[in-house]
């Protein structure tokens, strides 16, 4: 077995162990944390497409999660839609929104792109906050019922967690396929060498735009899971702090790695949970963690661990050549 496949095997078994852990602990409290981590992980993986594989740092990604959750909430509460029909509409809305916002934001690159995504994200916050006749303004929209699935009542934490595991695995496999696909590879190419990729005949702008839409779509999926879990949506969920939180997950875990955002999501969600139990200063800690991670651990936890594993595992000679 090569070293690379051994590392994959170790990562996979750790992942399965981590997924099983909340169930082994048994109490609903831990199972609910598990659900929250998985929702955050899907959200962070979607942003990783832009930040990690596309090299495009967006600070407005919460707008897609939030909009999708708001659409589900509005349609089920005020227009009598079922949860799943509403979810399909929400995904459509989010994809259209990502197509429009992407076209605007991709007029800029680098820091300009970052500033435009931040501004656009705050627009959606402004709409949710100010358009109070429809969105409930600062009160948010409460009491969205968790739906049944195949006759199973998902109010039961364990069952909901099971659905989240299924959704997470679909997202993870989807993400893996994406990174290996032609589109994913050209996206990584445009990240590293945009000019050369353009010269080789790749339509750099189009590749980035499609990536932007895919990222928006998966953030929308996370938004549906979010509203299904919490049953409540507030303008804060699509604000700047939430966008920064998900960016922290991606960067802390390791941008541009498959499992980095997952590890980052687990770290941030658990940290937030622990801190909030003792003090109400989560935002201060979020800010300080951001500064600390960027300065001390810029590449993230997962690449660091990977290096550690490579140092521990002895390498076969042919493997060494293959990887170098």
């Amino acid at each position, binding site marked *: 077995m090569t070293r690379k496949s051994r590392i994959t095997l170790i990562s996979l078994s750790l992942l399965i162990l981590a997924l099983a852990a909340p169930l082994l602990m048994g109490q609903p409290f831990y199972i609910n944390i598990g659900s929250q981590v998985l929702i955050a992980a899907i959200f962070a993986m979607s942003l990783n497409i832009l930040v990690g594989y596309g090299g495009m*740092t967006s*600070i407005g990604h919460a707008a897609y999660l939030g909009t999708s959750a708001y659409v589900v909430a509005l349609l089920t509460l005020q227009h009598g839609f079922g949860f799943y029909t509403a979810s399909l509409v929400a995904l459509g809305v989010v994809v259209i929104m990502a197509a429009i916002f992407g076209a*605007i934001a991709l*007029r*800029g*690159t*680098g*820091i*300009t792109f*970052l*500033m*435009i995504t*931040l*501004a*656009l994200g*705050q*627009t959606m*916050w*402004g*709409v949710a906050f*100010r*358009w*109070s*006749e429809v969105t409930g303004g600062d009160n948010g929209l409460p009491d969205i019922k968790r739906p049944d699935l195949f006759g199973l009542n998902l109010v039961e934490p364990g069952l909901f967690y099971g659905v989240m595991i299924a959704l997470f695995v679909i997202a993870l496999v989807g993400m893996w396929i994406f990174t290996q696909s032609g589109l994913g590879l050209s996206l990584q190419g445009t990240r590293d060498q945009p000019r050369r990729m353009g010269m080789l005949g790749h339509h750099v702008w189009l590749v980035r735009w499609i990536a932007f839409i895919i990222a928006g779509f998966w953030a929308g999926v996370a938004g549906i899971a979010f509203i299904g879990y919490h049953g409540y949506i507030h303008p804060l969920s699509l*604000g*700047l*702090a939430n966008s*920064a939180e998900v*960016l922290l997950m991606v*960067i802390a875990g390791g941008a541009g790695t498959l499992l980095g955002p997952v590890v980052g999501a687990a770290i941030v969600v658990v940290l937030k949970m622990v801190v909030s139990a003792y003090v109400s*200063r989560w*935002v*201060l800690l*979020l*800010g*300080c*963690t*951001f*500064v600390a991670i*960027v*300065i001390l651990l*810029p590449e993230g936890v997962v690449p660091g661990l990977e290096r550690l594993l490579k140092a521990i595992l002895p390498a076969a000679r042919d493997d060494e050549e293959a990887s170098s």
Partner: protein
Amino acid sequence: MSIGFWLLQSLNALALGGLLFLLSSGFSLIFGLMRVANLSHGAYFMLGAYVGLSVLQAGFGFIEAILAAGVVIAVLGGLIERFLLRRLANRTLAQVLVTLGLAFAIADICLMLWSGDPMQLPAPRWLSQPIRAFGFVFPGYRVFVVEVSIVVAILLWLLIERTKLGAMVRASVDDIQMARGVGIPAQKLFSFIFCLGAALAGMGGVLGGPILSVYPGLDGEMLPLALVVVILGGIGSIGGAFVGAYITGFVYTFGQTLLPAFSYVILFLPMIVVLAFRPSGLFGKSAP
């Protein structure tokens, strides 16, 4: 809606435009020189307003409050530049993310120190006399804000266009390596411009206090406005910040009056038009 209403709204728009200029001219200078999008800028504005509030509550005058906020925020900016941003030289994204993290930290500390209640800074009596002109009465304080922003704009323009320091700044904006090569102390310029930009934001916060008042979340509302201004006007250009600030002031004020629920959406229309036809902004030279 009478003419008087429109005139009054126009004055409000001009006053907001003036505040946005104070906020975004510093942002734009910092970005132009150091390529750092300082996402703490909204937090500097809010912290400045809170510092001004405390100085006023301690019994000092309005001018002292403005100066104190300017000094405090300039020192804070200087420390951040010296001990955090300089360590991350040439790592633009890391610098931007650090300023984002600091924005949250500053905002939460403000919440801790000054509580979550909205507070209005009292406008000094000698500035809030109503002004009568053309048969209408205008609130004097807003006229004062507009005047201050125009004076600051002229001073900044003179500083950048007519002094040796300004010439060094312009040279560094155009070609930092060549500027270093001919002996321009770029590091000192960075520190100076960062402190200046921070001070402008802090003083803008105090000046805006009687109009906008100060409350948690003010930072998050001002930052996107500043971003829109610099994207509109072109990054690194004082003239661009001036024009962008007044356009944004008008669009936002009238949007808020006519369609309050969508004032944020309307705000982005001019930005989208400019991005579509001139991605580098109205006064920008080239895309960074």
